[in-house]
């Protein structure tokens, strides 16, 4: 009899708990406010066998390019609002403009424009897994080539 009296209160309490859990889980699906875009500028070459220890975390990715040496020239991170553009200065008078487009299915879609002075060099739209990256390489620099690691983390 006592249990029967307590039951509605217990069920109500548990239902509230379920709602709180649902709310918390649902919040995970909400559109993030901004994207933290990080650009790592790496100089790759074949003049030595030096591998910058700061690049240890992405050694596996850089191996794909088959250069002998890799040196991190610059690492820059900026919070970029959705559909807002941010410009990253790249050595050699270049600049990289990143415009996050949308966050869907845990992937960040963004437009990336590489320019040399005023001239556009590359325009691309890339979808990368949240907290993942892609590599843009090839522009010549100081006897080697520039390799840009472009990563995005939704905030």
């Amino acid at each position, binding site marked *: 009899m006592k249990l029967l009296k307590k039951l509605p209160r217990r069920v109500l309490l548990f239902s509230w708990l*379920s709602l709180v859990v649902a709310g918390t889980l649902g919040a995970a699906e909400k559109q993030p406010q901004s994207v933290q875009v990080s650009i790592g500028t790496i100089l790759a070459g074949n003049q030595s066998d030096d591998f910058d220890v700061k690049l240890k975390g992405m050694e596996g990715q850089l191996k794909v390019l088959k250069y002998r040496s890799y040196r991190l020239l610059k690492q820059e991170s900026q919070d970029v609002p959705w559909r807002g553009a941010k410009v990253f200065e790249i050595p050699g008078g270049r600049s990289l403009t990143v415009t996050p487009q949308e966050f869907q299915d*845990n992937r960040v879609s963004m437009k990336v424009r590489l320019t040399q002075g005023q*001239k556009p*060099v590359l*325009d691309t739209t890339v979808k*990368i897994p949240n907290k993942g990256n*892609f590599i843009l390489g090839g522009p010549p620099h100081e006897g080697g080539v520039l390799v840009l690691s472009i990563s995005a983390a939704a905030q």
Partner: protein
Amino acid sequence: MNDCERMEDSIGPWLDGELSAAESELVRAHVTACARCGEARLRLETIDRALSSVLVAEAPKIEFASFWRELQQRIEQKTPWHKRLLERASDWTSAPTAAWAVPVLIAVLIAVLSYESYFPIRRSRNNFATVESIDSHGRNVALLREDESKTTVIWLYQNQEGDDEAAEETPPAGPAF
């Protein structure tokens, strides 16, 4: 109900000493004055005496030891584990307790359906960056996806016409993808 009938009901409790002083005095006065109730009192006293003498005579003959022994045994007797389990299971599946199953089921469903968004890092589905559009403004470009390190590479090759400043530099040969 007249006075005698009411008093007859009180004679028994009066003889047993269960009445208050005032009630006892009332009954005593009535029983003394009323012949019918006086007889009822005598009858009850006779029965009481007869029962008392029988009980006093027979009580020592009754064997209480075995009764207490059995009672003690039943108190100390342990229920087998499978019986306890069955009892508990029937408690849990009884209607009031089973009502818990509804919100529990809702919570489990929400947790299962939201698992991927809650632990996005664990999803294995397509960890590659995908290139949706690319315009290299007339330059040669290569696109590479490497499975082992899950790397996507966009590689710009040197413009043969040398239309930009950097083209004057001589880069090492392009990577052998």
